[in-house]
């Protein structure tokens, strides 16, 4: 029963997509992509950031051997030009509400490390947590607004499925391996970006209007800016955090 229905709806979706694509290409219809603007910028720091420490995994040989040189703690990762990595930049206000995507966000425990260090997901979006290691993990997201839980996951166990109903930045730890540390950035917007080693971000598909753009970093905290997107012009928002060595 369900299969024909699914294939039918997929077909109709495809045909709608084709019509939109054709219409946009011909310039007949002003599709959403034509007027949507972009906010881009860079997240940097001033001052001296704290020194990251090497992680000693000697007690877990199966993980230690995956890292010929020890990995470093990741609470402040910087790049060239004082760039700040792992900052989450998102639209805090002004965007149209959208329904949560059904595509799950994948979060891995690999080599006794959380990958990625910061996972961004939307409120209601499914999250799948994998244990790729030969050892047991016990993932413990330290949620304060959402319900808190911790779950044990032996090697080879199926992924743990979860989702969050309220926006929150949730620190994640492993109850077995104290050094494991990551974050879930649960946002109520689909417009978000996580900075890479160059500190750059780009929020796309924003119709003209006024927006509050917020940059969040686990150590540096949050900063917000009001940004106006006008049709056909690229808006910029740069964030500078003050770093202290300790």
């Amino acid at each position, binding site marked *: 029963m369900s299969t024909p229905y699914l294939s039918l709806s997929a077909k109709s979706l495809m045909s709608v997509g084709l019509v939109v694509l054709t219409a946009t290409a011909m310039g007949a219809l002003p599709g959403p992509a034509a007027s949507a603007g972009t906010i881009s910028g860079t997240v940097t720091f001033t001052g001296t950031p704290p020194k990251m420490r090497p992680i000693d995994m000697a007690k877990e040989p199966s993980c230690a051997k995956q890292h010929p040189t020890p990995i470093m703690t990741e*609470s402040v990762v910087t790049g060239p030009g004082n760039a700040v990595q792992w900052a989450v930049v998102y639209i805090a206000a002004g965007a149209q509400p959208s329904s949560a995507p059904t595509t799950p966000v994948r979060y891995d425990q690999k080599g006794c490390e959380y990958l990625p260090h910061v996972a961004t997901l939307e409120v209601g979006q499914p999250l799948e947590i994998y244990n790729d290691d030969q050892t047991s993990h016990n993932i413990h997201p330290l949620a304060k607004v959402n319900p808190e839980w911790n779950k044990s996951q032996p090697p080879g166990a199926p992924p743990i499925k979860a989702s969050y109903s309220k926006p929150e930045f949730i620190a994640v730890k492993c109850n077995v391996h104290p050094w494991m540390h990551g974050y879930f950035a649960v946002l109520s917007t689909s417009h978000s970006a996580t900075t890479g080693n160059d500190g750059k971000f780009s929020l796309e598909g924003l119709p003209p209007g006024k927006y509050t753009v917020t940059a969040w970093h686990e150590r540096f905290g949050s900063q917000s800016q009001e940004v106006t997107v006008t049709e056909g012009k690229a808006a910029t928002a740069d964030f500078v955090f003050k770093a202290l060595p300790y």
Partner: protein
Amino acid sequence: MGRLFAVLTAVITVVSTAIFISRTWWLPADVSVLGVGIDRQMVETMVAAGVLFVLAQLALALFVWQYGDRGTPRPIKIFPGGATPMVVIATILVGAEILVLTLVGAKVWAGIFLTPPDPKALHIDVQAEQFAYYFRYAGSDGRFGAMHPELIDDGNGNFFGLDPANDTTARDDIISASLVVPVNQPVFLTLHSKDVGHAFYVPALRLQQDFVPGLVIPLHFTATQVVKQEIVCTQLCGLGHYNMRAYLEVMPRNQFGQWMQDQAALQ
């Protein structure tokens, strides 16, 4: 049937004693100064208990063999004077034996747990937590930074709750996940627990000591050989207890100096 039981008792006694005498499942070789005394005490206890064990079990086997019920009715004989004098004598003898062993062993015990560490001992702070150990060296200033439990932040490597922003003595503290010590150097440990009860057990050092949250427990040893040994938790401390371990690495003195320099550069 009774005679079979007698034979089985004798066989079990001989085989299990042979396993002890041949040291089939014995402790790993001792690598510490104080372990010699522990080993001697252990052997004395084993010999004292072992001789009694063998005599008692063989006597049991003999009596079962000789006087077991064979289906022919015989009058039950009573030991002259009844059983009470025998029980009293046995209790006094065994009690005396335990008392003597305790008195003999008290010196060894005191040497480990009641004697202060060597004043020149290398002081290392130990933090036990679910489910790992961390070790802290004082760094170049020779002083430990104060511990602030509210500042403990495992994800950022602050396992001891140091406050380097305000406490300059904490800035050069060296944190390691392995207990690295120079050979033939007295070592003084102060044991802290962040959460629940844990234990520090290194069979080759003949040392086993519990961690108790809220207490700072002193412990000292001197390793006499260059070895790498496992430190394991022997107090059931939670889900990951089976996986709670660290390594003791005993290094030649110059190699240890190099290790300290390398670690200091990483802090």
